[in-house]
């Protein structure tokens, strides 16, 4: 369908500019296929010539291409302006929509990748219900085709939705975690790490965000029953909200009919509701049979009384159920059982013995049905019944409560040579105990203890060991005090630089280890990077990691310039240096084919 068309020239060639549901296209006069075709999602900016300018021009900028296309409306002046305004209006909404999506990445670092993943969305993503439908078939094939050199995979669409939503989700995640946001700005936007790599291993954040956003509220089960509140002066007030109106229309279609037939021709909106709440119709709709209290308020109303229905209290409900009633809940099924045996008919559960209750019961039934329908959605009735395989009549009358609770002991834990774990220690101890005869030990100890007193008086302790221990402890405590008291003497600016350097290095390390040992669960579910890509990534990350000592060194020098104890800065960054060192060693010692 074409939204709007106009005669316009492009590159000084006359033609026809069209805006369809999906594309903006321009066809040169006399040709059949459009020579310029821009998808809505590619439109990034819009420029117009000034009002009253000799030529009516429209320029559209594309994603990743600010030059875009120039169109000149070739119709006579007033028409051209009107046409352009029309295009402008349509395109503005499209562009603002695109912008909203792109704000997730204020400056997409990889326009090419973005465009690619855009094209991917045209492919229906299969298996959205699998935990991580990261790669669509197209993407997978692409990543396989990519060589070792090009390890930039297109940004995977983790959630299985369109990239726009994906970007929005990412943006939200980044906004919610300022630290992650900073890291993202430092690494991805500066182009050191690709968007895909950054989110690798962080998919769960996006999924969680999606989960919390994608929630819908269920339809509440309460009957619509507007409660009048009494205000001063004995007046009764009912607050009408759009929600309430919607609920009433949904619950009582007859009110919707009345509304559409009478408003605004015969009644104003206000009058309509005022009269409705005083009418018999409203009274019939109340969720209580004891509405007699309000009886005196109810007035005859020529308009609403037309819509009054007879009370639904006949033996058969007015609205017949179409589907077949399950034999196990159909009370009428046992009706004939009693005649032959001479028993009385079972009338204990006869519906409608109290006539006044019938309309209410039926109202409740209808309400429940409507509620269930809203939950089940638009399934065809045949699919609604839960047909579990093998569920025959027998399983239906087989009550769970009558079964003996099944005692299942679980899987026996089998440990090889379990005894061995305890024996080694045990046997030694046992031997040691056996060697001693209690009587001998006792006598021995006694004899030893006899001369203790005299020995104690002669006791002299070497000072050295004690002093050494004391000094060690004092330095220990001093160190700790030192650490606690001087915590914040690094200036904020430098400290921020330090943390930035550290988090960036950590991210490189994280990427490196992820490429070294991909988590096992991913092997089955996600078509992750191929081995070649992993190797490439390792090499790349190692390249970054190798630079860490330089950066740290720069920081230490900066600290010296600030006049701060450089050793403290060095110590603070020591773990990261050691970790980088470890990564480098691991990488170097790695077997080539690994």
């Amino acid at each position: 369908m074409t939204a709007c068309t106009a005669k316009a020239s492009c590159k000084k060639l006359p033609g026809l500019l069209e805006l369809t549901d999906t594309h903006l296209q321009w066809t040169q006069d006399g040709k059949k296929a459009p020579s310029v075709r821009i998808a809505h999602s590619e439109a990034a900016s819009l420029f117009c010539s000034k009002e009253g300018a000799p030529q009516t021009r429209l320029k559209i900028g594309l994603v990743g291409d600010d030059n875009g296309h120039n169109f000149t409306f070739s119709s006579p002046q007033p028409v051209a302006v009107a046409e352009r305004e029309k295009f402008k209006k349509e395109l503005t909404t499209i562009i603002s929509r695109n912008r909203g999506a792109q704000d997730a990445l204020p400056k997409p670092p990889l326009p090419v990748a973005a465009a690619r993943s855009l094209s991917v969305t045209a492919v229906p993503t299969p298996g959205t219900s699998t935990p991580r439908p990261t790669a669509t078939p197209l993407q997978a094939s692409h990543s396989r085709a990519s060589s070792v050199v090009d390890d930039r995979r297109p940004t995977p669409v983790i959630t299985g939705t369109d990239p726009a939503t994906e970007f929005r989700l990412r943006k939200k995640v980044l906004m919610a975690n300022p630290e992650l946001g900073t890291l993202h700005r430092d690494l991805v936007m500066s182009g050191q790490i690709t968007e895909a790599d950054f989110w690798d291993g962080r998919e769960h954040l996006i999924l969680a965000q999606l989960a919390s956003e994608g929630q819908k509220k269920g339809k509440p089960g309460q009957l619509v029953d507007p409660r009048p509140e009494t205000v001063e002066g004995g007046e009764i007030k009912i607050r009408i909200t759009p929600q309430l109106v919607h609920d009433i229309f949904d619950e009582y279609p007859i009110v919707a009919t009345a509304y559409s037939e009478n408003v605004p021709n015969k009644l104003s909106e206000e009058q309509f509701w005022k009269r409705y709440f005083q009418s018999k119709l409203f009274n019939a709709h109340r969720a209580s049979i004891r509405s007699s209290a309000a009886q005196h308020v109810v007035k005859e109303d020529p308009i609403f009384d037309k819509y009054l229905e007879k009370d639904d209290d006949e033996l058969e409900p007015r609205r017949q159920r179409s589907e077949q009633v399950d034999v196990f809940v159909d009370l009428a099924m046992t009706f004939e059982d009693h005649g032959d045996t001479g028993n009385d008919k079972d009338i204990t559960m006869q519906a409608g013995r109290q006539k006044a209750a019938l309309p209410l019961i039926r109202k409740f039934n209808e309400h429940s049905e409507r509620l269930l329908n809203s939950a089940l959605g638009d399934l065809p009735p045949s699919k609604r019944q839960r047909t579990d395989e093998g569920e025959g009549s027998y399983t239906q009358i087989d009550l769970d409560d009558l079964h003996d609770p099944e005692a299942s002991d679980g899987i026996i834990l089998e440990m090889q040579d379990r005894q061995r774990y305890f024996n080694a220690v045990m046997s030694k101890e046992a031997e040691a105990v056996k060697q001693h005869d209690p009587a001998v030990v006792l006598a021995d100890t006694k004899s030893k203890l006899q001369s203790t007193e005299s020995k104690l008086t002669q006791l002299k302790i070497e000072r050295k060991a004690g002093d050494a221990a004391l000094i060690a402890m004092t330095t220990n405590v001093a160190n700790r005090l030192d650490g606690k008291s001087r915590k914040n003497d690094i200036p904020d600016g430098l400290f921020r630089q330090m943390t930035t350097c550290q988090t960036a290095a950590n991210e490189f390390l994280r990427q490196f280890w992820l490429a070294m040992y991909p988590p096992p669960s991913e092997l089955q579910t996600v078509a992750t990077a191929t081995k070649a890509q992993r190797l490439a990534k390792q090499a790349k990350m190692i390249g970054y990691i190798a630079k860490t000592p330089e950066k740290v060194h720069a920081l230490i020098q900066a600290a010296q310039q600030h006049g701060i104890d450089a050793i403290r800065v060095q110590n603070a960054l020591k773990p990261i240096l050691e970790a980088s060192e470890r990564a480098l060693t691991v990488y170097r010692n790695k077997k080539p084919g690994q």
Partner: protein
Amino acid sequence: MEVDSDSDISLDLDHQSSKAKGKAKAKAAADKKKADKGKAKAKEQPYVWEASFARSWDTVQEDEAGSLQASVEDLMARGRRRRLLAPASAIRRTIIRHLILVLDLSASMMDRDMRPTRFDLMLQYAREFISEWFDQNPLGQIGIVGMRAGLGERVGAMSGNPQEVLKSISDRVKLEPVGEPSLQNAIEMARNNMSHLPTHSSREILILFGSLTTCDPGNIHDTLDTCVQNKIRISIVALAAEMKICRELCDKTAGQFGVAMNEGHFKDLLFELVPPPAQRAAARSARPSGTNAGLNPAPANPAADLMMMGFPTRLPDASIPSLCVCHSELKSQGFLCPRCLSKVCDVPTDCDVCGLMIVSSPHLARSYHHLFPVKTFTAIMKDLDVAPDAADACHGCTRIFPERATNAKEGMSPFRRYRCPDCENDFCSECDVFIHDVIHCCPGCGK
């Protein structure tokens, strides 16, 4: 306060009206009976707050001599019988657990049938539960989701640090109940929080459910099916009554379901879920064997895989402060990951950099007693069983055993002797309880 005084007034009115009815002409019998009942109730419990104290002494009863011994023994016997139900041999249990605790934050939690309110009681027990749970499952992680106003709300992210988890539910005001709960939304939310977890750990959802309704946007049976597929175990402790869907959720996912009768029972039900769940052979919910045994030949004892763990190097408190990976803060204390040498603040955790699971050996040991439980001691019932050379005092506390048989409750030994089947030492009943409930290790066997 307001609600309190309200209920007082209503009771008072009841009282008066029943008097009035008594003076008035005969009413329908049923009506009168009802009114009398209300009166009796009003007499028993003049104030709502008194009720919570009413029960405490009901359970303990003195015998003729005024001693409480019989009651105490009765309680112990009950505990013993319950312990006998536990499987004696070592079975496979999931030591690395991931649990999402789903709290009902709907309006029905303001009900006062549990004191002070269901909500406050739930919060209190949830805190105790979390502390106990981490104590017994140091390798586990807990996340918290709330059900409020028809949506699932992430209250606390998955964390292995008890303080962090407790902090997320420390603010009562933030969790103020409102609206209706939605089981489906909450379960979906919990499921999504766990979908990235590795398969060797358990994924569990524990729902504390006070409402009798759930307001769901879609078909909750679909959610149930996905949970079964994802091997998520759902357990529910209901505070109101049993609901078919709750029972089904638990049965199909091999979880536990219970309805709390009173405050004490609520706690019991909750704390039953502290020990790690046993791994069941070939999903119990599967149809009786024979029909599909050929299709799905699940081995009785599937092979176990090894998983990699690291024991970190602990940096002493007095070491020079350095930046940690997890918070980017200058800290003295910390642990170094053995694989990548990054510095993390707390164990157990997954290393933030290389993803290795870092634990300390006490954590493992503390989890292990679930795998190697102390065998149930046998109660000595007959004179013959007391060997002539048997010790005349408890092996644990050296209290002298009685020489002659005393009368004892069912399941209790008349000689007050309980024998370890492995080392054949006799213990008194107190030591029996202490060994099984607290130290999880028999002093006689020395293991």
